[in-house]
């Protein structure tokens, strides 16, 4: 009979997994040179360009989901806070705890993720606007991850987590 996972085991696993995604998200060099995008640039995308931006957006979506869903829930459970409320309620508790800064406006990152889910295949201007915003806000996303990581390490794992924060890009 295997022992059930405890909330802090799952939180640690999610923080480690998110760390890898965040590290890949900051390898922006290949797309940074193309920013900011406009409708004409999007129209001229090569297949390689498409794949690069798809990968970037996939990582942005993944990290947003991991912080918003798994890491937030993990921290709330470990802190014996209400983890059953709406995403908005959970985010407010995270901000109250000090695990997310309100200035990061993490809720707008989650809204941006929802917006990415809409496809605008025939609107290059809209695609450019969304990708520019994803690029611009990726630093806030990583900052949000780092803040949740620092909080969990200090308050839940007593400094023994051993996961380094992800350096934000110079891009």
């Amino acid at each position, binding site marked *: 009979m295997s022992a059930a996972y405890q909330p802090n085991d799952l939180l640690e696993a999610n923080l480690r997994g998110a760390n890898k995604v965040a590290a890949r998200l900051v390898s922006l060099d290949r797309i940074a040179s193309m920013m900011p995008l406009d409708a004409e640039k999007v129209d001229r995308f090569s297949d390689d360009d498409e794949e690069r931006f798809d990968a970037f957006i996939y990582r942005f979506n993944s990290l947003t989901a991991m912080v918003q869903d798994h890491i937030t829930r993990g921290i709330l459970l470990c802190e014996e806070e209400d983890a059953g409320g*709406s995403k908005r309620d959970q985010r407010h508790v995270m901000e109250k705890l000090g695990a997310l800064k309100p200035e990061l406006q993490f*809720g707008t990152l989650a*809204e941006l993720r929802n917006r990415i889910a809409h496809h605008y295949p025939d609107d290059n201007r809209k695609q450019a*606007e969304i990708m520019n*915003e994803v690029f611009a806000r990726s630093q806030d996303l990583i900052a949000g991850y780092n803040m949740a990581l620092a909080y969990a390490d200090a308050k839940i794992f007593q400094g023994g987590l051993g996961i380094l924060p992800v350096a934000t890009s110079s891009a």
Partner: protein
Amino acid sequence: MRLTASEVDAIKTCAKTVFGEGVSVRLFGSRTNDAAAGGDIDLYIEPPSDELSTLRNELAFKLKLMDAIGDQRIDVVLRSPMGTRRPIDRIASETGIPLL
């Protein structure tokens, strides 16, 4: 229309905060129909300048409004910058109820 007075106040306050004075807001879609039930809150927003008609402002407005009125389904259509006229601009302008 099917919005409470406090919801209308919240929409006005959030719109002015994010887009500034001079912003215009219209309610369109199913919430304009008193006989219907439920439905998203569809808002058509015309910022006072193209510079304010950004995705970032749209998301900030939506988040601020949800903080004010709770978790409701809110759809925002911003007037397209640079004067591009889409079908949705015409529909919202012609059928929407001015809130601000």
